[in-house]
């Protein structure tokens, strides 16, 4: 349940690679040596580890099209754990090196294997999930997905790493993940004699009590406009809370409710601060047809809130129709560089017609710049980006009364500069991507009533709840071109 070493690496698309921080845990190494016996492999110095990691990650020698060690099809990397071959012998292997990589940041650690030979399965090692949890915690501490380049934000965070690790992983055994934000100044330690305080609630809130509950639903969609291909969409929701309530072990209950006939929330995951869960809440699953128990709420989540904002729970939901149904037809005209475009978007009647924003983007890949855009839209307005390879159809805050909008016209491509390349979107394989956000709406119908939030504490807090729907990866594929999806249904 411990890790032997930890590395933080930055790179820019495989270039300018450097180990920005590393930490070894000699006491864990001592255990590793004793447990592994003759198959023990010591951890090499950082520069060697870096090179081995880059090779395994496919980032080494970015200029070379083929490197045997890097690109061998035998390296089936199907787990988050890599094997680093320190030397050519069968024993000189570091395993399991866990790696999570996002943007310019690569985080890696080497968990302790508490067994000798033969190598146990990855799934039997608690240190692996511990390591993953620690790495993910460090990743979000270092800026999560927003980390762009070196200067802004990363360096100061990296400078904090020694003292952060002293707290969360002092001797190689991860105790906690670092808090992404500095500890709340409002937090003060509990006085002697009070009930036990959770280790993840470091202090107490002092000040005006308030509870914020935000419910965000995200819809993803793939529409093909082709009867032989199954349209897919899914919806998932997240409830985020920020609870400023007094007490050492305050008790808050948030209840999610569905409208009558709403389809049950599935795959519910709860934050560990939730004290108890009802089995009926966990029963519904997206991966089977359901057992017909049809529990549809209310979903009660009693918990003791941490001081910082946290994700109370998340769920998935199956909704019968996507919120916006679209059709996209792109046709080649007689001239090679002339395309005829026809788009129709229809807002489903159950969806509230009040958007925070709504726009449709039509990118064109593997072509030169657009020269003439002769396209009419029935609503909203059309922009062409500076590079002249993207049409942005701004629909604004509302669909018209008919809830239907269209775009018709022709586009000529005869510019000088080549546009972006996408090996997926060749010829007439093209898509529209929708970006929208609808406040005060969920597709599942799920909601958190302000009055259903119960707080057991002396002062009555101010309770604010809100909900919204947003799109993510909402694609409408051109129905006159081949869409990049296996046809038909997956039936084994």
């Amino acid at each position, binding site marked *: 349940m411990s890790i032997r070493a930890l590395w933080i690496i930055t790179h820019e698309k495989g270039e300018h690679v450097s180990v920005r921080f590393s930490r070894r845990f000699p006491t864990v190494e001592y255990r590793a040596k004793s447990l592994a016996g003759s198959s023990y492999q010591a951890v090499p110095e950082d520069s060697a580890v870096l090179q081995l990691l880059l090779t395994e990650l496919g980032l080494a020698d970015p200029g070379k099209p083929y490197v045997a060690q890097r690109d*061998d099809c035998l390296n089936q990397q*199907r787990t988050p754990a890599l094997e680093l071959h320190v030397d050519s012998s069968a024993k000189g292997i570091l395993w399991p090196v866990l790696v999570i990589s996002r943007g310019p940041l690569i985080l890696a650690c080497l968990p302790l294997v508490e*067994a000798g030979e033969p190598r146990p399965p990855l799934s039997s090692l608690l240190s692996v999930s511990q390591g993953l949890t620690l790495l993910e915690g460090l990743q979000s501490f270092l800026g999560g997905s927003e980390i762009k380049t070196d200067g802004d934000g990363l360096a100061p965070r990296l400078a904090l790493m020694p*003292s952060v690790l002293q707290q969360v992983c002092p001797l190689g055994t991860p105790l906690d993940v670092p808090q992404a934000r500095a500890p709340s100044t409002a937090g003060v*330690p509990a006085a002697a004699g*009070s009930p036990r305080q959770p280790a993840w609630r470091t202090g107490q809130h002092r000040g005006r009590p308030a509870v914020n509950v935000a419910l965000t639903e995200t819809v993803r969609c793939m529409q093909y406009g082709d009867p032989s291909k199954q349209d897919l969409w899914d919806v998932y929701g997240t409830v985020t809370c920020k609870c400023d309530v007094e007490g050492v072990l305050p008790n808050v209950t948030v209840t999610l409710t569905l409208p009558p006939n709403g389809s049950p929330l599935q795959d519910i*995951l709860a934050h560990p601060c939730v004290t108890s869960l009802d089995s009926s809440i*966990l029963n519904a699953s997206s991966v089977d047809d359901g057992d017909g128990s049809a529990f549809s709420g209310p979903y009660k989540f009693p918990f003791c809130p941490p001081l910082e904002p946290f994700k109370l729970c998340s769920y998935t939901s199956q909704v019968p129709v996507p919120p916006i149904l679209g059709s996209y037809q792109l046709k080649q005209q007689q001239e090679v560089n002339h395309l005829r475009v026809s788009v129709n978007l229809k807002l489903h009647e159950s969806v509230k017609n009040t958007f925070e924003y709504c726009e449709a983007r039509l990118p064109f890949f*593997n072509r030169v710049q657009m020269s003439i855009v002769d396209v009419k839209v029935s609503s909203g307005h059309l922009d062409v980006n500076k590079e002249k390879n993207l049409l942005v159809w701004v629909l604004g805050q509302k669909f018209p009364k008919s809830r239907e909008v269209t775009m018709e016209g022709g586009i000529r491509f005869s510019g000088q500069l080549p546009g972006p390349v996408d090996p997926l979107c060749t010829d007439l394989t093209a898509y529209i991507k929708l970006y929208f956000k609808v406040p005060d709406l969920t597709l599942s119908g799920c909601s958190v009533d302000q009055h259903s939030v119960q707080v057991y504490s002396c002062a009555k807090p101010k309770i604010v709840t809100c909900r919204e729907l947003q799109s993510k990866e909402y694609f409408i594929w051109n129905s006159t071109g081949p869409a990049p999806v296996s046809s038909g249904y997956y039936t084994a």
Partner: protein
Amino acid sequence: VFLTMAVSWVERVASFLRSPSRFLASTTAEVFLVELLREQRDERLTMLSPLCEHPTLLCPSACTGEETCLELMSVFSHCPPKYTEFRCQLLLTLTTVLVSTGCVSAHSHASRDFLELLLKLAQDTYYDPADVPSALRSTRAAACECLRELEACCPSLLSQHLELLNGLRQQENPRHHQALSGLYAVVLRNGVHLLARQAGAGPEGLKALLGGNAAVAWEAEPDSPALTDRAAPLPSVLGPSGLGPTLQTGPDCKELRSVLSSLLEESYLLTPLSQAALLHALTEVVAMVSGVSPAIFKAQLLRLLGTSKVCLFHCTLLMKAAFTDSLFSAEDEAFLLKRLVALCQHPQMSTAAQLFYTDCLVHFPENRPIGAADGGEALPVLLTPRLAASLVPTVFDEPATMLARLNVSALVHLEEHGAREGGAAGGGLAYLWEHLLLRLHVVEHGGDRAAVVTFFRASFLFLCHFGHVERHAADLRRRLCALYLRHCRLAPHVLNLADRAQDGPVRPGWAVALLRSLQGVAVSAGGDLAAVSQKDLHWHLRVLARVAEEGQIGQGSTVDFLFAVATAASPPSRNEDWRLGSDLLAVCRHLLAHPGLDALLCPLADVLQHVARHHGDTDVRDHARLYYSLLTALSREKLAGVLANGGGGANGGRQDNKRVLSAMVVESQDLTSALTIHKARTPVFHLVAKDRAGGWAEPTPAPEDDEPSAGRFAALADVCVPRLFREGASAAPPAVTLTLRPRAPYPGTLRCSAVFTAQDELTWHAALPDVHVAFRQLFKPLPVPASWGPALRLRAFERLWDDLFCGRLGEAELEALLEEHFAPFRVADPGDATGHRVLLFIPPGSHVLLRIRPQEDAVQFHMATDNWRLLPHVNDFLLSVTDWEARNGVDS
């Protein structure tokens, strides 16, 4: 000045941490350690990192470790409590140094004092308002963490203190309950583990363990095994090979049960990471103690099953593996599996977590496993195609996710339909096949390197699972050839796939068929060489070189293609191109080793000769000439051996990209080595004389005065022994007949040496032990015609007798001879006119007696002596004084 020094120290420490070996090359560990310890007095945090991360480099011996610890402890004792962070870091460093230098023992002052200090700090209830009770902001929590690590490294170190630790844990207001619970759980787990290993341990042992409360364990019980033997860290009890030791306690484990319950009750208050560790330790304890039912975990299960944290859910899976149906009913199992499948693709899970869960799925701990128990991948029985449908790969998946899902989906399909030819059964295979084609589409349309690598990995995985489905296997082959035709630069990937498919579990023959098709693609370019780019030509030759390694593939078209390339007129620059020439020769080289070489001999010789004469590059020309010579001068076997050895062969060179540029140099060296006769230092075998008459079997030693020289015998021709060592050790060694033609009738010695080709295909020269030819081995019957009867032979003998022992001297000559040489030694016998007597005394005590009898036209010498060794010398003397040799040509 102080600031500069501080900065320089930060840099020095950073430089040490970056590469300790490089840093220590410019100074010594001793010096650096002394400097570090001196600087500790200033309470600077960074100064501790070198010791914290590389203690064994700085303290190579237990002795240095001990001294360093004493030094650090003195720093600790002088450090005011307000420097909490530094004090914590000191404790952590001390633990690290003690453990890594192997100092933890009752005999070590430092470890005794340190343990005492830690126990004191752990009991310290001093409340500092500034002390923020986060994970590790206080010395007390740090001390607990140090104790936990010491216990983990040296099991049962603290088992005497369980009672004390339990008390601390249950204090009214333990502000460090997480640290104390974690510590207690580890000590308990280790204590139970060691107890369970002891033969005959039972409930009393457990009771004693839980009630252990020594004031200071080290002094109270210095013989404790943990301290004297330094117990090794304990492996996990929950190994894949089943459960570890168990402690028979009977049903009455009230104390233990109550401790476990209270730990579990409060587990909710721990951070997810500590909670998972605690639950895992307790799972191990319950798994080892037969008297505690796993149902004790029941109350926690729902909370754990609903969790969003990877480590907590994983911990539940491990619990399931440990307790199977004693904690999880069949219904629970189905539920857990469904949950796991959902987590494998839950949009809220990170990619790494999804991958991990997918791995857990193929190693799912079933209540009644029937699949692979050896830790291999196996699908849980309950995983229906319907459940797995959510795990199909899509073109938008990241590479690792896609491969993991492709693997699971393939396993599901095979499980459902068996390994038989897919046919129309199930759309699963069709879906996966189409997915592969989508990946191929991306590659065909300029996908980046990652997309290419991913496609080939997916192809390999697909082949591993569905290589037996001929329809798809053949189609994939065709498509790969088409891909290669359009994008020759992908040749290394295609060849790599062929290699792996050949080595791996893919149906045999697929790779060869692919290579055969690739050969077709490559040689078809020979039709219009001018239209083929230099780069593509390079790849074609690379492909053909690989194809030529396959003995089953005919190489006629390859040679034709090579000839076309070698003789192509345009563009002229090609004829100068070293690289192209080298590629071409690489193919030739493989062809030289091809089993079908006989059929290729003439055309290949033509290619080589053409290159040797007309290529623009000297190096290439020379090389072609060399190959030409090899082809025409060496036997097939030797040639194959030479080439197999000379690098670039079947296995050695295939992977190595570095070879490309230096191939010629390396190859020249290799060939030189292969064609040179190497000197063997020791004789590898020896000749044993074999007597057909059965009289002797071993060579007799040569006479001492015999000088072995080639002059004794006429020179022998080389003897060629094909396959000196035959199959099987029992086979008789080959017999060799040597016909010796002596030049002189003396025994002699044959000097032998052997030139042979060993199994490594190198040619060796070895001197063999001398073979002695004894005197008696020289005897031969008189060489007379076989028709001679006994009478004739007798006459021959008589004539010879007379001839041999008669000197042909006249009376006067004899008299002169006697007068000249024997006068002083004559013994006169006047009564006997028929002869003369000569007596020679040869000091110190030998005699030679001669009776010389004149006959009609000859003289007989009768000789007697008491020392036969004198005979040759007498003979020599007689020869020298007479002139018989010239006349008779024989000696006696």
